């Protein structure tokens, strides 16, 4: 009960927490999310193909697999919501084709009476919604399993599609969309494409500004990750009651040193100055972070810690990580090409990639039960590699990889030794040596481009090391959570600002006569930057002024925002130096740039995933979805309109099918009668991979989106890697299985870890737990 007195109730009570509740840091919270398995799987698959295929990791490759993923994910998100609501819609695949067929058939001149697209397109939407309503109502009224009802609709749709196609056109291919009246208008919406050959700011001379060059995005990313880490600290550790001025001095000195190093890196060129500058930056950042942390956070209280890993587990992990790190270092030493050609055939690369992915995953999993905070940070950074590599070259990313792995190894080994003498500075020094080594390996190159990257790498590794080492030092893990801050208003304000500037920028672009998609994306990017800058500046300012308790959460938000923004900008826009590099000026003075195309489908997919997640997690409707899927009778008896909720879900699925159908139709302008048939199972599979429970009541819309991305990466990546595509489904199936298993395992572990009593309890998490919360019942009685 509440009045249990422990040795440390004061701190917990002051913070407004519950002393029985082990504090759940943001990483622990993330690990209990249903989509974590899919996320880790996605990162693993990305790493695998990134290593074995050069074009896969480029923007072009990304556009390629995102396109495949988007067609799938657009449907998978609403299908996942329906699944969480406890129902299936087997007609969803056939419906995508049906809407396309209806639009083309109605629009075109059949027997001299074409309706035109302005009527046909809305009509096909009405048809889709009607079928969705029909499905939902029938399932509700008859209480038949939706499986049966929609199977009927599925066959009816297939039959009708074929029958009507033959009836009207005498063919199974219905074509001629581009001849229909109103094609231009609708093609501007559903056929829009984004060519990534433009700068975020169109005034080309702006690209000479330092702000819009590569460094801006690199710095944004670095800053974001740093903010994320510090925020994680703030959320995970207890504050010091009184500041520690000595540590603040160290921090300030560190900042100065880092700045000096940074300036020297910018001002001079040459191996020697890179060396010195890099070391200065490293030492500075280390000192700054360590000092800052020491001045703010409590010393560790190890009394409340749960079960620890055995020393030999650390030892094995450390040795394994070091071995992998050495292989990476050798690889970097042996080759300066972008590929790991010396490793021999595909098998060697494959094994190598798997090893790296496994170590990253191990770091995360090891962190789950053991909750030693250094490891989650390392794991997260290893897992964050894809984002980083967007901003730097393959070689530079390898340096990060090497640094991270080496660091992991050292930390694990040091953990073994720590049982004798815990001294954070020794571990810091070792880490520093590793960075110097990594830096030395790459410092041979004096090219300007590489220097920028090296700086990125250096700063990253330094931050990583400092964070993890100091984290260990300050591992007061089970401290109480600070009370949640009231940041809602401020976030809403910035959101509104962002939306407003999005509209303004988009309208300006539209008025310039640019395409709809161009206007939308440019507007979104600029609006996002405005909102982000406002939020970041405001938050940091407020934190400095008031020392607000919510600083951790704010920093995490700022960090996530920065990382996402830099990756999005990198994907969608060409940076200054890239323009100079990849574009050629023709004889006529016109600038020609290679084009990467993003269809409007990708944008729709991203919007769907975001809106779907918001709907599920934050709105009343989302609560109702989970309730009708989890226990319909209970939901109904407390006043949830179950029938309406389910019917709405069915209509959302068929509405999404309409959008997908239109996207397909306007891309191809001609549609086969059987298009989309059979896809419904893919949607369901992808949703399950994303962590959605087949039986309903639990899941994630975002997870379904990630699942779709995994599918897209695998199906395209096999082509990129020039593997025999006959094996595609074998690989797909195996990886899907792995994703689901990891999902179950990780969630089972994470659900266990946070309970204070969990450590003492016999470990029942070993049983794969589909419904973790159910398995606990009774074991936590009051």
């Amino acid at each position: 009960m509440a009045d249990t007195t422990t040795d440390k109730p004061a701190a917990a009570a002051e913070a407004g927490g519950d002393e029985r509740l082990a504090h759940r840091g943001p990483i622990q919270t993330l690990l209990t999310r249903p989509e974590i398995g899919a996320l880790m799987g996605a990162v693993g698959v990305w790493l695998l193909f990134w290593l074995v295929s050069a074009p896969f990791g480029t923007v072009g490759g990304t556009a390629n697999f995102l396109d495949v993923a988007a067609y799938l994910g657009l449907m998978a998100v609403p299908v996942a919501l329906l699944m969480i609501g406890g129902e299936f819609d087997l007609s969803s695949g056939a419906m995508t084709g049906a809407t396309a067929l209806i639009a083309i058939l109605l629009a075109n001149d059949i027997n001299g009476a074409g309706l035109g697209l302005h009527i046909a397109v809305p009509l096909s939407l009405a048809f889709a919604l009607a079928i969705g309503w029909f499905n939902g109502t029938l399932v509700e009224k008859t209480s038949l399993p939706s499986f049966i009802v929609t199977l009927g609709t599925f066959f009816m749709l297939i039959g009708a599609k074929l029958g009507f196609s033959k009836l009207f056109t005498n063919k199974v291919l219905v074509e001629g969309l581009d001849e229909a009246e109103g094609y231009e208008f609708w093609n501007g919406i559903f056929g829009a494409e984004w060519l990534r050959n433009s700068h975020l700011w169109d005034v080309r001379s702006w690209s000479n500004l330092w702000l819009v060059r590569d460094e801006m995005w690199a710095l944004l990313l670095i800053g974001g990750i740093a903010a994320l880490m510090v925020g994680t600290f703030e959320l995970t550790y207890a504050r010091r009651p009184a500041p520690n001025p000595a540590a603040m001095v160290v921090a300030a000195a560190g900042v100065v040193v880092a700045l000096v190093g940074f300036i020297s890196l910018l001002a001079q060129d040459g191996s020697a100055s890179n060396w010195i500058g890099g070391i200065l930056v490293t030492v500075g950042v280390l000192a700054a972070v360590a000092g800052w942390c020491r001045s703010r956070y409590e010393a560790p209280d190890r009394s409340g810690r749960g079960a620890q890993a055995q020393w030999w587990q650390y030892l094995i992990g450390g040795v394994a990580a070091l071995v992998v790190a050495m292989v990476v270092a050798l690889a970097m030493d042996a080759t300066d090409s972008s590929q790991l050609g010396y490793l021999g055939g595909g098998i060697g690369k494959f094994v190598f990639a798997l090893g790296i992915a496994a170590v990253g995953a191990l770091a995360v999993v090891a962190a789950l039960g053991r909750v030693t905070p250094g490891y989650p940070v390392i794991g997260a950074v290893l897992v964050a590699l894809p984002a980083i590599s967007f901003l730097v070259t393959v070689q530079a990313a390898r340096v990060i990889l090497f640094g991270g792995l080496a660091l992991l190894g050292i930390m694990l080994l040091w953990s073994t030794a720590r049982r004798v003498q815990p001294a954070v500075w020794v571990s810091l020094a070792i880490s520093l040596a590793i960075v110097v080594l990594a830096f030395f390996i790459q410092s041979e190159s004096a090219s300007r481009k590489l220097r920028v990257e090296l700086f990125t790498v250096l700063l990253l590794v330094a931050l990583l090391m400092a964070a993890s080492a100091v984290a260990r030092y300050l591992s007061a893990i089970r401290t109480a959570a600070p009370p949640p801050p009231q940041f809602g208003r401020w976030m809403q304000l910035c959101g509104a600002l962002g939306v407003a500037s999005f509209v303004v920028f988009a309208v300006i672009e539209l008025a310039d006569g640019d395409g709809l998609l161009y206007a939308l994306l440019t507007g979104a990017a600029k609006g996002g930057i405005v909102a982000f800058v406002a939020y970041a500046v405001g938050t940091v300012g407020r934190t400095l002024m008031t020392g607000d308790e919510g600083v951790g959460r704010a920093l995490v938000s700022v960090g996530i925002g920065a990382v996402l923004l830099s990756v999005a900008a990198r994907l969608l826009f060409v940076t200054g130096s890239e323009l100079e590099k990849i574009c050629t000026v023709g004889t006529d003075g016109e600038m020609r740039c290679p084009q990467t195309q993003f269809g409007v489908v990708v944008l729709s997919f991203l919007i769907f995933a975001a809106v779907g997640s918001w709907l599920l997690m934050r709105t009343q409707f989302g609560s109702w979805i989970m309730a009708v899927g989890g226990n319909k009778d209970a939901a109904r008896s407390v006043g949830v309109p179950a029938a309406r909720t389910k019917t709405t879900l069915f209509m959302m699925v068929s509405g999404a099918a309409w959008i997908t159908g239109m996207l397909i139709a306007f891309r191809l302008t001609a549609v086969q009668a059987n298009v989309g048939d059979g896809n419904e199972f893919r949607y369901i599979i992808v949703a399950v991979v994303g962590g959605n429970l087949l039986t309903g009541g639990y899941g994630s819309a975002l997870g379904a989106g990630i699942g779709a991305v995994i599918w897209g990466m695998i199906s395209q990546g096999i082509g990129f890697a020039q593997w025999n595509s006959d094996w595609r489904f074998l690989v797909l199936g195996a990886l899907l299985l792995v994703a689901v298993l990891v999902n179950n395992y990780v969630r089972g572990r994470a659900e266990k870890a946070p309970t204070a009593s969990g450590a003492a309890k016999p470990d029942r998490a070993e049983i794969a737990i589909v419904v973790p919360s159910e398995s606990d019942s009774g074991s936590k009685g009051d």
Partner: protein
Amino acid sequence: MTDFLELKGISKFYGNIIALTGVTTTVNPGEVTCVLGDNGAGKSTFIKILAGVHQHDAGDLLLEGANVKFASPREALSAGIATVYQDLAMVPLMSVWRNFFLGQEPKTGVWPFRQIDIDKAKMIAKEEMAKMGIDIRDTEQSVGTLSGGERQSVAIARASYFGARVLILDEPTSALGVKQSGVVLRRIVEARDQGLAVIFITHNPNHAYPVGDRFVILQRGQSLGNWAKDELTQSELTQLMAGGAELEELQHELAEAGSS
């Protein structure tokens, strides 16, 4: 003084089957009315009539003196009659706070950005549970991880928070162990002391007698009677439950045979 809720000869027929007949009792704030009966006695029909799931076919249901008939659970709910069912109407996979506010989520923001005020919901859920004497560890934990007694408390706290004036508890102790039953009985007393009228459905007279102010006993769809606490002893109650008059008669006969 009119009683808050008065039942006069409430009856329910399913075709030619008499599910419930002639139930008469009163329910008042600050009182616990116990409805006892064995399996098939008509207890659940009785609940469903009060909760608005079914409608009575004969008799009068008077709410503050006015004759009413609830057409739906929502109507009963808005009249202040909340039912905590045996299965508790909880979604085990959902968190405590989501269950607490299910169907009546507090919202914030402007449409189309209306969303649940999660911080507020969590805070209220924790506070209301604390009022019931249950200190929930984390309102984010799923209801499936709670013990039976805790779940019962969530349901009761939810009902009382949403303005219930009459709380119907359907067999709240039947699935619980001895110790947890005691906890739930304490909750009933606490709800009563907060001024709620409680209708406590049970088949266990040992649970009913200590907390009840008024007892209705049902047997095969018929009401055996309606007693205030001072008109009945616990052993009489047990006897009535265990076969009622028949058992008494048997005892008398045995006693006579013994004395002669």
